[in-house]
C-alpha cells in the first residue's frame, strides 16, 4: 500500500532523513518510533505530499506522491503533529469544510460527518467553537478530519501527544479500531504505544532507519541471549555451580543482596533455548526452595535506548 524507497530529505545543508526504505502492507498499523528530531515528522510530510523529497520516491497505492499528488492526496487522511484546526470555526462547520475540500459528494456531506462524529463521539461538541475545546477534543476533531472521505491510508503524527492518560488510552483504542479498515502509519516517541497499537515497528534515529520488525521479534532479536530471573533459597555457591552445569547456560550471576540463604540470580542462556524446566528440576532435586522463576523480556523501551545510544557512539 505504501512504498518508500531511498527517501532522503535535506533542509538546506541539514540532512533530516537519510535513505529510508520501507513498505507498509494493506491493513497494517506501522509504528514510527524515534527520539525527537529523528526525522519522523519529515518522513510523514513527504509521504503526505506536504514536502517534496530531495531524492528517493514514495508511492501510495501505486501512485507516485510527486507525480500524481492529487491522486495520492485522495488516498490519505493526515493528522499533523499540531491538529490543523481553524479556531474560529464551530466543529460542525470545520468538518463540513474539510469534507468539501476533500471532495465528499455534496449530498453525502452530512452523512459522512455523522459517520465520523459517531466514531469519535463528537456530537456533544458539534456546535462548540474549536477554540473552546479541550486538548483531547481538539485531537479527536483532528482525527475526525483525517477520517473524512474514508481514505484507505491514515498518517498520524504523534496522535497522543499532550493528552492526559485517560485520553491517551481512548485515542489508542480508536486507532486500533481504525486498523480494520485503514492502513495506518503512526509516529510516536512513547514506546508502550507502539507495542500496544502496532503490528510492525520502524525505529529511526538521526534520519536513518535503525530497525524494522514486529514489536515481539524486535525484542527477541535484540536480546542476543535469554535472561532468566531466579530467586532460590539455598547456598549461593552451590546453586550457581549447579545451574552452570545445565546445557546452553552462558553465565550465572547473583544479583541482589543475599540474606541468609535467600538470593536472586540472573541466568543468561542462548537465544531460543527455554531452560526454565531444567533449572526448576535441578533446584528441586537439590531440595532448595524455588521462590521465583521468570524470563525477563527486554522491553521496547530498553531496545530503543540501546539502539539509539549505540547510534550515538559512532
Amino acid at each position, binding site marked *: 500500500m505504501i512504498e518508500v524507497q531511498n527517501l532522503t530529505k535535506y*533542509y538546506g545543508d541539514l540532512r533530516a532523513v537519510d535513505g529510508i526504505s520501507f513498505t507498509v502492507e494493506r491493513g497494517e498499523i506501522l509504528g514510527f518510533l524515534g527520539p525527537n528530531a529523528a526525522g519522523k515528522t519529515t518522513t510523514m*510530510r513527504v509521504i*503526505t*505530499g*506536504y*514536502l*517534496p523529497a530531495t531524492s528517493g520516491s514514495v508511492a501510495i497505492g501505486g501512485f507516485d506522491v510527486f507525480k500524481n499528488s*492529487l*491522486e495520492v*492526496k*485522495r488516498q*490519505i487522511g*493526515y493528522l*499533523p503533529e*499540531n*491538529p*490543523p*484546526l*481553524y*479556531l*474560529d*470555526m464551530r466543529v460542525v*462547520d470545520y468538518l463540513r*469544510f*474539510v469534507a*468539501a*475540500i*476533500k*471532495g465528499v459528494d*455534496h449530498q453525502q456531506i452530512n452523512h459522512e460527518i455523522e459517520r465520523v462524529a459517531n466514531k469519535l463521539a463528537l456530537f456533544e461538541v458539534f456546535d462548540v467553537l474549536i477554540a473552546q475545546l479541550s486538548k483531547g477534543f481538539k485531537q479527536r476533531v483532528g482525527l475526525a*478530519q483525517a477520517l473524512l472521505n474514508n481514505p484507505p491510508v491514515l498518517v498520524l503524527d504523534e496522535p497522543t501527544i499532550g493528552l492526559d492518560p485517560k485520553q491517551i488510552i481512548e485515542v489508542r483504542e480508536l486507532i486500533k479500531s481504525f486498523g480494520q479498515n485503514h492502513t495506518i502509519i503512526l509516529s510516536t516517541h512513547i514506546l508502550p504505544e507502539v507495542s500496544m497499537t502496532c503490528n510492525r515497528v520502524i525505529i529511526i534515529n538521526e534520519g536513518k532507519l535503525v530497525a524494522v520488525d514486529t514489536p515481539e521479534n524486535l525484542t527477541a532479536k535484540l536480546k542476543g541471549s535469554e535472561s532468566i530471573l531466579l530467586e532460590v533459597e539455598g547456598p549461593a555457591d552451590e546453586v550457581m555451580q549447579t545451574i552452570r552445569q545445565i546445557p546452553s547456560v552462558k553465565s550465572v550471576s547473583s544479583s541482589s543482596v543475599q540474606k541468609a540463604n535467600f538470593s536472586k540470580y540472573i541466568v543468561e542462556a542462548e537465544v531460543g533455548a527455554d531452560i526454565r524446566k531444567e533449572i526448576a528440576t535441578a533446584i528441586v532435586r537439590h531440595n532448595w526452595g524455588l521462590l521465583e522463576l521468570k524470563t525477563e523480556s527486554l522491553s521496547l523501551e530498553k531496545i530503543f535506548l540501546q539502539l539509539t545510544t549505540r547510534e550515538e557512539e559512532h
Partner: protein
Amino acid sequence: MRNILAIFRRDLKGYFSSPIAYVITGLFVVVTGIFFYLLLSSFIQYSYALMMQQQSAPLNVNLMLIRPFLLNLSVIILFIVPMITMRAYSEEKKSGTIELLMTVPLTNWQIIIGKFLATFVLFLVMIGVTLLYLIFLFLWGNPEIVPIIIGYLGLLLFGAALIATGNFISSLTENQIVAAVGTFAVTMFLWIIGFAADSAGKVLSSILGYLSIVEHFEDFSKGIFDTSHLVYYLSVVAVMLFLTFQSVESAKWRS
C-alpha cells in the same frame, strides 16, 4: 469550482467571525464618512457663496464633490488593504492549517483564487458602504450616474490590484504584522513613484507614471473609461496571483 467556493466561504466567514472585519470596516466607514462630510460641507459653502454672488449656473457635483471623494477613497484604500489581506496566508501558516490545505486534494490555484475572492469580497462590502453616502446626493441633487459607475469600476480594479499584492505578500510570511507592513510598503511605493514621475525626465517620467498604481485611477475618477488602465490593473492582478502561486509552490522547497 466547488473547491474554490469552499475556500472562499471559509475565509470570508473567518473574517466575519473574528473582530477583524468589523474593526476594519468600522474604521473605513468612519474615515471615509469624515472625508465625505468635509467635502460635502465645503461644497455647500462654496455653492452658497456663489449663489450670494448671483451666479446662476449650479456647480457640477460630479466634478466638485464626487471626483475628489473618489480620489480620497483611493488613498484610504491604500491604507486599508494591508489590513484586509494580512492574514490571508500568514494565519494559515502560523496555525498550521496550511498543512491541511496542502495535503487534501486541492490544487494551489483553487486555494489562491478562493483566498483572493474572499479578501476581494470583504473589500467590496466596505466599498459598498460608501455608496450609501452618494444616495444623499441623488436625493437632494442630480449627479450624473455614468461617471460614478466608471469611478467605482476604477475603485474595484484598483482595489483588486492592491488585494492581489497583499495576498502575495501574506503568502511570504507567517507573521501577520510583517505581511501588513510589507504590503503597506509596496503599495506606498507604487503610489509614491507617481510623485517621482512628476519631477523625473521625460522617458523616466512616463515609465514611472505608468507603474504608479494611483496614476491609472485618475482617469476613472474623472469618469473616463480607458482600456489601457483596465489592462494595467488586470495585469497587476494576474502577475501578483502568479507570484502567489510561485510562493505557495516554493514554500515546500524552501522549508
